[in-house]
Structure formats: structure tokens, C-alpha cells
């Protein structure tokens, strides 16, 4: 190992400060991808966590981790699924943290709905029912019905076997429907 003097140390430190960081995407590609996915990802995060502030924080974190990852993506869909997987893991980690960012049994109905002419009551019912589900069940249903994701895509995002998605979806559907009809 070559000798390192204090002058070398100072120079290396200055170079590290000035160095251009390497991220997984260039700016134009990232901004285009972000514009295509950010709104939907925010919706996913806000409905899974039940908290808009958490959704704001985790949105930024999700994209940062995507930019820092060294995964060679085969397609746009692969990249998007990976982003959702990061987001899902972040929500799970935030819930399990010693000081959770949000409560597991959060009432989505507590989220203030924007002013609308009709159906406010119904929307609150949907949110309340959705809030009674486990976060993984929310994620399953949201990916399946809000995003139209396939079973293999859902399995990829949630990190479970594709074969078990059908049963998990069946149970989550019944639970949500039962809560909605109550």
C-alpha cells in the first residue's frame, strides 16, 4: 500500500467533495420515468400507508434508492416493478420501525377527501374498509385493481410466490367486500 501523506488526504477529500456522483440513470431518462410514474406511486404509497406525509417522504426515498441501485433493468415495466418493490419495503420498514411513521391500523377514512359534489360518504366508506385491511392486503388489491398488475408482477413487487397470489387476492377481496357491506 502506498504511503499517504496528510496533503494527499486533503486532496482526496477535496476531490471526493467535488466529484460528480454516479447514479443509475441520466437526468433526462430519470425525469421522464418520474413524470410517468410519480403520481401513481404516490397514490399507492398514500393508500398503503394511509398517510399523505409518509407518502411524500417515501416517494422521494423510493426514487433515490432506485437511482442508487445497480440493477440492470430489462424493460420499463421491470424498472417500475422494482420501484414498487422498493416502495413496498419502505412502507413495511416504516411500520416496523421503533418509532413508526404511521399506525398499522390507520383509518384511511380520516384522510380528508377533496371537495366533491357527491359520493363523499361512499368514498369515506371505501377508505374505512380499506383501512381495516392489512398493509399487504391493501397493496395486493391496489396493484391488482388500481394498476391492473398481473399476478407475476404483484408477486414480484410483494416478494411472494406467484402461485399464492390468487389465494391471497381471493381472501383480500372477500375481506374488503365484507367490510364494505357491513
Amino acid at each position: 500500500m502506498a504511503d499517504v501523506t496528510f496533503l494527499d488526504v486533503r486532496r482526496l477529500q477535496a476531490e471526493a467533495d467535488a466529484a460528480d456522483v454516479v447514479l443509475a440513470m441520466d437526468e433526462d431518462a430519470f425525469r421522464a420515468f418520474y413524470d410517468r410514474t410519480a403520481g401513481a406511486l404516490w397514490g399507492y404509497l398514500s393508500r398503503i400507508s394511509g398517510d399523505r406525509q409518509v407518502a411524500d417522504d417515501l416517494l422521494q426515498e423510493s426514487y433515490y434508492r432506485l437511482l442508487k441501485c445497480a440493477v440492470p433493468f430489462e424493460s420499463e415495466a421491470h424498472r417500475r416493478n422494482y420501484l414498487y418493490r422498493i416502495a413496498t419495503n419502505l412502507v413495511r420498514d416504516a411500520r416496523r420501525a421503533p418509532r413508526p411513521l404511521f399506525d398499522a391500523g390507520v383509518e384511511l377514512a380520516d384522510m380528508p377527501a377533496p371537495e366533491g359534489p357527491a359520493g363523499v360518504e361512499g368514498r369515506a366508506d371505501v377508505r374505512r374498509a380499506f383501512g381495516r385491511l392489512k398493509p399487504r392486503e391493501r397493496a395486493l388489491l391496489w396493484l391488482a385493481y388500481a394498476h391492473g398488475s398481473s399476478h407475476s408482477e404483484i408477486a414480484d413487487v410483494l416478494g411472494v410466490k406467484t402461485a399464492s397470489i390468487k389465494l391471497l387476492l381471493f381472501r383480500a377481496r372477500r375481506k374488503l367486500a365484507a367490510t364494505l357491506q357491513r
Partner: protein
Amino acid sequence: MNPGNRRLEPEPTDAEIEAIVAEAIAAEAVLARSEAAPPSSAIVWWRAQMRARQEAALAASRPITIVHALAIAAGAGLMLSVIGYALAAVKGSSGWVTGVYQSLAAAAAPLAAVDLTSRWVTLPITAMLVSVLVASVAAYFIFADE
């Protein structure tokens, strides 16, 4: 009407349940999209750049800190060994010190009461040297960031 004879509501079929759920979530998804106000891509990109740069600088400074710590530890070790050697030399040449003391005693009467080989003299001197060393290390850490 006898409650036992009451006809129960028929259970919804799987297809009906799926329709209910799909409709509810689709409506909620439309609402979520209208609520979504994510920061602009430029801001997110800029923040990511800043954070990555900060993390890179932090990672680069980690080995630098280790080099600094090793240098300080080596300096402190050297200083302590010099002090130890000096103390041993003082102890070993106490006869010479006594001779010097006797010759000085005539010139400086107040010093006559001082016994340089006594621990009441060597201990404060050692403590003073150690505190100078500790103070210089502390001063380095205080002003290093600046």
C-alpha cells in the same frame, strides 16, 4: 315472523365480490390520482444528486478519519514513551539530581526544601505533560472541522 324462518340474504358470488371490489378501488384510484401532488422531477433529481454527493463525501472521509486517528494514537504513544523514558532517567540519575540540587541549594535557598525525586514533584509534572497532550488532541478535534 319467526326469526328461525327468516330467509337469509344470499351470499354474493365471487364474480359479484370482484365487481364490488374492482369498482371501489378504481374509484379510489381516480381520487388518489387527483390528490397526488408529487414534487417536480427536477427537485427530486437535485435532491438525489445532493444526497448521493453527501454520502460519497462521507464514505471518502471515513478512511481519512481512520488515518487521522492512527496518527494521533501514534503521536500520543510516542509522547507517553518519551515521558516514561524521562521519568526512568530521572529516577536512575537521582544521585546526579541530588548533586545538582545541592549546588543549586546554595544559590537558591527557597529551593532547598524541594525534593525533585519526590512523587509530589514528579506527579504534577507528569500530569501537566499529559494534560498538555490531551489539550492539544482536544484542540485538534475541536478545530478540525473548521
